[in-house]
């Protein structure tokens, strides 16, 4: 059974149609790349799955639930911006995650924060943009969630950290979870992807297994992306 079902999803902002009749069925046990250029509708789709935007038409369900308190218990979301309170340090943020998310693994979070050399006592306000992103990712990936929605997780970090993040995502991968990574930095992540969704001007233009694309098209996902989204 699919853990995420999206049916006829449309989202308009005035005249602009950010998502146009999108339908998807996503199974557990996969790492899925949600790939498209800027403004293609990736973030809008992820925000609707999190209940941060309301659809104009259509519906979404996560494990049979509409976005709400129930779905938020099983979804770990990494937004494309810093959303954590800036007066808190890593320790206080871990306390908060532990209080609100039953699936939060504090030991894992502490290990990741140590590995990335983040000062536990430094407040978010004093951290660099990259460090904030790393800390946010540590907290999200330390959850044993069933759905991970990662919006541009590698956009603002250095290549060494990128590798660490991708290793972390792979190590979290299990048969009960689905990981959706939204990005346009395809060459960095294509090696970890099981499934690929191309989104263009709010429409799904391709949804295939990563291996099938490589075998049938005889090119990398990055190569196919450049071909499909050629300006």
């Amino acid at each position, binding site marked *: 059974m699919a853990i995420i079902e999206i049916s006829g999803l449309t989202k308009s902002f005035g005249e602009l149609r950010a998502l146009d009749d999108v339908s998807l069925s996503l199974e557990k046990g996969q790492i899925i790349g949600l790939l498209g250029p800027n403004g293609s509708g990736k973030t809008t789709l992820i925000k609707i799955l999190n209940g*941060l935007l*309301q659809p104009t038409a259509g519906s979404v369900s996560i494990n049979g639930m509409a976005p709400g308190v*129930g779905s*938020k218990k099983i979804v770990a979301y990494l937004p494309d*911006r810093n959303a954590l*309170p800036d*007066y808190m340090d890593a320790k206080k943020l871990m306390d908060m995650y532990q209080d609100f998310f039953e699936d939060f693994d504090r030991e894992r979070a502490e290990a990741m924060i140590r590995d990335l050399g983040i000062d536990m006592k430094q407040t978010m306000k004093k951290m660099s943009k990259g460090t904030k992103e790393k800390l946010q990712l540590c907290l999200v990936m330390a959850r044993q969630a069933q759905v991970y929605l990662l919006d541009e997780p590698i956009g603002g970090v250095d290549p060494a950290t990128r590798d660490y993040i991708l290793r972390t995502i792979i190590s979290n991968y299990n048969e009960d979870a689905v990981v959706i990574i939204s990005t346009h930095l395809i060459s960095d992540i294509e090696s970890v992807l099981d499934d690929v969704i191309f989104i263009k001007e709010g429409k799904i233009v391709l949804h295939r297994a990563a291996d099938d694309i490589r075998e049938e098209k005889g090119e990398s996902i990055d190569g196919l992306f450049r071909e499909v989204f050629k300006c």
Partner: protein
Amino acid sequence: MLAKLLKYELPAMGRKLLPLYAAWAVTAVFLGIGTQSSASKTDFIAVMSILLYTAIATAIVVMSVIMIVQRYSRSLLGEEAYFNQTLPVSAAAHIGNKLISATVWISVTALVALLTGFLILIGMGFIVGFDSFKAEYIDIPKGFWGLSFEMIILIIASIVKSVMQIYAAVTIGHQAQNHTTLASIGAYITVLVFEGSAGRIVMGMIPSMTKLIYGAEELYGPDGILNFTGIFIPALLTTAALSAIYFFICKYLMEKRLNLA
């Protein structure tokens, strides 16, 4: 979940407001002492001190209100909403959390205002100790405590209503895709007009409500003084009803119409 939210919300407000309160108290003491120790203790210095104190107190109260509004707006409808709105917490708990925290901190602000008022009077030498103050100023009339209790309840209910009124305006304003601050101000004015109209209707009903609740024929006693107890329950019910309306507006918009920019 509400208790968990409050665990983080109350200190978050406190870390900004407590230093302001401390500065307020210190200013009050210095103003009082300065006035007392001045070589010529004139009415002019006393008036200036009171004016300065009033200006500082007004600034702090305005800042407190701005912080309370900003906290709601940023946490639930702004950047931090990308975290807070993905917590497994209902919209009602989120709004309740902000409301309780705001009510607590506004009440504390009022208490600090009273306390600093006393401090300035002590500093000026008008009050030597509580006993002398009590002997000089307090002549407790019959029914004072009952009336005070009713007034405190009504003041707290009014704070709750005013906070919910602002929250409703901010939430309605965020329905606009652009210029949300302007839209919130517009929504606030609309809410005030609505409340003014509703208030006039309710005021017209109060005598009959009083008669219904207390069996009293008149709102005014034989001495011509307003029978406060007579309007307490109608006023409380009206304030509670308005608070509930604003609460459900916020809850509905947050559950069904949330669209974070």
